[in-house]
């Protein structure tokens, strides 16, 4: 940010620095390049031998074909992630408010116990989870998957909001209390209006996490409710759908979260860093 060291001079060591940075950039861009270059070729131009070459003319054959295959599951994904993200952030906000501003005896023990839930390998709860979802009749569909994402999202959403609220000066709450405000009115009139940045962070985080999830989806949904990750994986595993359509499909499946990253990357990175338990 402030770093002004050496800016402007182009010594040999600077050249090496930029060369290394550009080489790394190529490494990160290769998959994106292949997805786009392949996607924009016409069907008759696609061949393994020329897969690294740019298309001669822009064509949307692959994207159209991939979208035809993935459209139902894309909509399933949206129907899944939008409610999941909103419910998660409301729950996380309330929990974070309580655990930062209304601590009670035992809340310091409760918090790490909640947090542990975000590190567990879900294989260790998978069999009971399937049985339980069958018992309560939420197995196979999207509402069940929303519930699962909300519940397993509690640790991270609570953590992000709690850390944010911990930085709100207690004096604000105190003065609101002197004015006669209680638990709910402080939350509603004082804390919530100040929480917009955290809401953006948590909404984006839960949107991305639930969009990208594969494990819960593959185990808890039946084919008509598959989100796009499961559909894409099946598409890639089938012999019928050509590799070029798979590349285009991968791009389509990545597009919503990529768009969020491009436009709201700063907030996404905050969520990412919160998950590492450090700031």
């Amino acid at each position: 940010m402030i770093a002004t060291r050496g800016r402007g001079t182009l010594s040999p060591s600077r050249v090496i620095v930029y060369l290394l940075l550009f080489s790394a950039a190529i490494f990160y861009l290769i998959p994106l390049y292949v997805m786009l270059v392949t996607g924009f070729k016409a069907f008759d131009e696609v061949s393994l031998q020329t897969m690294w070459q740019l298309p001669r003319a822009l064509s949307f054959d692959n994207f159209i074909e991939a979208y035809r295959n993935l459209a139902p599951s894309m909509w399933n994904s949206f129907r899944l992630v939008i409610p999941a993200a909103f419910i998660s952030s409301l729950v996380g906000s309330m929990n974070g408010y309580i655990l930062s501003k209304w601590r009670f005896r035992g809340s310091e023990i409760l918090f790490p116990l909640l947090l542990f839930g975000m590190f567990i390998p879900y294989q260790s709860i998978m069999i009971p989870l399937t049985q339980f979802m069958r018992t309560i009749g939420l197995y196979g569909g999207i509402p069940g998957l929303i519930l699962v994402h909300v519940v397993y999202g509690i640790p991270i959403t609570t953590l992000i909001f709690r850390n944010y609220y911990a930085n709100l000066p207690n004096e604000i709450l105190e003065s609101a209390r002197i004015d006669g405000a209680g638990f709910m009115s402080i939350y509603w009139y004082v804390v919530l209006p100040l929480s917009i940045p955290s809401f953006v962070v948590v909404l984006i985080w839960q949107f991305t996490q639930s969009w990208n999830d594969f494990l819960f989806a593959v185990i808890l949904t039946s084919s008509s409710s598959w989100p796009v990750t499961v559909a894409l994986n099946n598409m890639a595993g089938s012999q019928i759908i050509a590799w070029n359509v798979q590349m285009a499909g991968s791009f389509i499946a990545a597009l919503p979260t990529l768009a969020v990253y491009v436009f709201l990357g700063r907030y996404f990175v905050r969520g990412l860093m919160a998950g590492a338990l450090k700031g």
Partner: protein
Amino acid sequence: MSIQTVHPTAVSIPQPTKKPRKLPDRDTLLGILFLTPSVIAIGIFVYGFIGWSLRVSMSTWKGLTPDYTWAGMSNYAALMQDPRFHIDIRNTVIFTVLFVAGCLFLGLGLAILLDQGIRGEGFFRSLYLFPMAISFIVTGVVWRWLMNPAQGSRMSGLNLLFSELGLDFLVNQWYTTPTFGMAAIAIPAVWQMSGFTMALYLGGLRAIPDSLREAARVDGASEFQLYRYHILPLMRPITLSALIILGHTSLKVFDLVVAIAGKQVALDVPATYMWTTTYDGNFFARGATIGIVMLLSVAVLVIPYLFYSLRNEAEL
């Protein structure tokens, strides 16, 4: 190391509506009341289900109908003798070592490069970090094609690129390499998560006061010595965090392996074994056993880290 993330912005206090003053105790009770649903949910979905899995792992449940006949530790003993689980351990070790080392080296290297006051830093940083926004499934599907092992006229992907660039010595069998095929799967994993490691280190480098750099330079330290003796030692807590995060991710790796390797036994890991044995083989007792073993391996890493992080926070 604190776990604070964001800072409050300027504050204006809206006038709260006038209400009779409540006793603080009542508000605390309300807090507990509103927290209860989450506590119950985590109690059931995390701790209750872990206990239930533990019980299944000590049963003889094989087949579609639950069977809780007591089997003690026999499933664990059988798993340790299982040749397929030995493959899983081998693959997890190969994957973890390469993935963690790759992310740490690339992440630290890129962070140091980006810390040199370069033009377009924000651009490079966003570019290195974008794979974190996409799913392991997308990553896996694309890299499976990039790492296509076909040779001769069917050659494609990176092998074709190497061949066209005259780098034929780089042409290889990728994930179909005997014994070490798992190493190829670590490449897309590094691609996906090294940017995240870079961001962790860059945050750490930015927290170092300029006065430290100045002092070292005044003492005559070269750039190399500055990093080697003054800056890198300060990065240890970040390396620890990164090790825990990357390590526990690699113990759980699932999506990426499924997208690249499907259900090949040669590229099996505990998570895929758990999946196939439970949902294809209906061997629920073994699936639960694998799940619990995975949980223990992750818990050994994460629990001390959780307490370390939270204790440091409490001292602030």
